[in-house]
């Protein structure tokens, strides 16, 4: 008969030993079923068995198949009365709207509400001139001509238009598309759809620092490649790709270059002529603009042809039919012009705050790994992995700071982020990674609070972790033989 051992003394948080089937403590082996938490009703075995359901299906203690256990840890709930709102440190997911942007948008929501495509009256003319001003503001930020900007409903639509549109237009002669493994889900999904239509797609691997290998990229280009898609700044690890070199390679081989610059526009200086980019996706709500609008830059010289995704009255050069939402477009334009003015100031401030955060955390805590290259990055996206701590417990412990572990679009599934997997992070480190986003409105006090909270919670969770105890004793975890239960 196996002994039941109570390992954890405090009720609310526990250390989840993911992926391990048994634990060796003090020379004695305890399997998953032997360890019981104090938390009512749930045994640690049901938590342990969840991730290894991929290997073989086992039943959790409550009889349900482990893989179908819902993700219950951070429950969605209404804030209690007098519960304070969390600090916002998730600027890669979305950004609050700048008050100047709202100020620019409001007249077009209230008074100047005409359809910009009405050519016969003042409402239409005012609206159209506002839309064209916004187009010019967006174009000035990236060094383009206003005629090359198409307003869309966001970066996802822009990515879809660019990838599917270009590939389908040139499909008679060119059937190959190249992208990377760390792209945003919309890019990867568009490529998947193209693959089902008969295109061949190459998903380039990235190096351990998150940057694509230029030689491998050049070698993957075939004579029938029509498009190469690489994102400028990654939304999960903040890594900046060498766009000038990639642009050089693509231009020399006659391949169109598309980049998803949603996280990069307005934060680092971008010039489409220098980068030799043919298509660029811009998102409004990542640069302190409104949600629901974005833009696609489509080069005119040399002309890039697209098959439109959305058919209709031929607005936006025939590439994206539909009424352009004037207030949103004005908001996007205002956000771009503000970003251009404030770029230097914001960059200095965000870099200073990010260094402060990372210095504070790494000076107090050992075994913290920053994912992604240390130099070739955007400072405001800091992705840290805390070894021997479980990511979800840490997020729960940090519940008065709004953070995310990995990207918002992948957080619904139990799998660790595919970006972290692509850069070769160990699975346990990938599960314990947190992304800190710093932006224009972050204050020193918020950064200090986050750092201190993080340090205390990580230390507390590590105190409770048997793996940490073993590491402190000097046992090398890789050398333990975990036995099959």
């Amino acid at each position: 008969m196996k002994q039941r051992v109570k390992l954890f003394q405090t009720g609310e948080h526990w250390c989840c030993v993911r992926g391990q089937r048994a634990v060796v403590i003090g020379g004695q082996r305890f399997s998953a079923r032997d360890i019981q938490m104090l938390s009512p009703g749930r045994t640690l075995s049901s938590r342990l068995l969840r991730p290894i359901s991929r290997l073989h299906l086992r039943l959790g203690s409550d009889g349900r198949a482990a893989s179908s256990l819902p993700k219950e840890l951070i429950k969605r709930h209404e804030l209690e009365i007098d519960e304070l709102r969390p600090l916002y440190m998730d600027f890669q997911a979305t950004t609050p709207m700048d008050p100047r942007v709202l100020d620019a948008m409001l007249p077009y929501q209230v008074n100047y509400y005409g359809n910009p495509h009405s050519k016969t009256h003042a409402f239409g003319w005012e609206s159209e001139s506002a839309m064209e001003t916004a187009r010019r503001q967006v174009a000035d930020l990236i060094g383009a001509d206003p005629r090359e900007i198409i307003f869309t409903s966001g970066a996802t639509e822009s990515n879809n238009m660019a990838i599917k549109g270009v590939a389908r237009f040139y499909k008679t002669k060119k059937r190959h598309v190249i992208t990377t493994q760390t792209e945003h889900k919309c890019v990867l999904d568009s490529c998947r759809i193209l693959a089902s239509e008969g295109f061949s797609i190459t998903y380039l691997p990235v190096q351990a620092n998150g940057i694509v290998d230029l030689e491998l990229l050049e070698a993957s280009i075939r004579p029938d490649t029509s498009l190469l898609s690489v994102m400028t700044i990654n939304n999960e690890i903040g890594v900046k790709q060498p766009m000038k070199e990639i642009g050089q390679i693509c231009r020399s081989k006659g391949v169109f270059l598309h980049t998803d610059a949603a996280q990069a526009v307005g934060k680092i200086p971008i010039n489409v002529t220098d980068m030799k980019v043919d298509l660029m996706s811009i998102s409004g709500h990542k640069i302190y603009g409104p949600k629901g609008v974005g833009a696609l830059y489509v080069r005119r010289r040399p002309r890039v042809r697209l098959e439109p995704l959305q058919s209709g009255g031929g607005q936006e050069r025939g590439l994206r039919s539909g009424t352009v939402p004037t207030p949103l477009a004005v908001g996007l334009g205002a956000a771009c012009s503000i970003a251009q003015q404030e770029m230097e100031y914001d960059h200095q401030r965000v870099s200073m705050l990010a260094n402060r955060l990372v210095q504070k955390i790494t000076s107090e805590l050992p075994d913290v790994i920053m994912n992604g290259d240390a130099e070739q990055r955007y400072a405001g996206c800091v992705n840290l992995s805390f070894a021997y701590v479980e990511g979800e417990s840490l997020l729960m412990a940090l519940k008065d700071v709004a953070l995310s572990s990995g990207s918002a679009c992948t957080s619904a599934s139990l799998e660790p982020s595919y970006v972290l997997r692509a850069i070769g992070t160990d699975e346990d480190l990938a599960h314990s990674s947190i992304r800190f986003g710093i932006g224009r409105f972050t204050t020193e006090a918020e950064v200090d609070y986050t750092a201190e909270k993080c340090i205390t919670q990580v230390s507390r969770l590590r105190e409770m972790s048997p793996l940490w105890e073993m590491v402190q004793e000097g046992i090398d975890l890789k050398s333990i033989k975990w036995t099959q239960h």
Partner: protein
Amino acid sequence: MAAAVRSQVISLYRMMLTESKKFPSYNYRTYALRRVRDAFRANGALEDPRAVERLVVEGQQTLALIKRQVRHTHLNDLIWVTGDGRQREMGRINKYNYFAKNDDD
């Protein structure tokens, strides 16, 4: 700078700071105060009267913007009556984040 212009700039600065302190949102409030202070400091050494005048006009427009936006973002302080007749302040609850009460900037 001429004395009249200097006093105008100083009064503009003071008014902008006063209005910025009225933002209900902690992040907007701290950003406005910080940005106004840094912008005036950065341009403090400017001598060219035309450039100074241009900046003063821009400052006045920004002051009007701050006043408008303070008013707009206060809209959440409305009181409304729920279906069962109870009064509830919409948005008042959970408006403050951790720092709202303790900020000194």
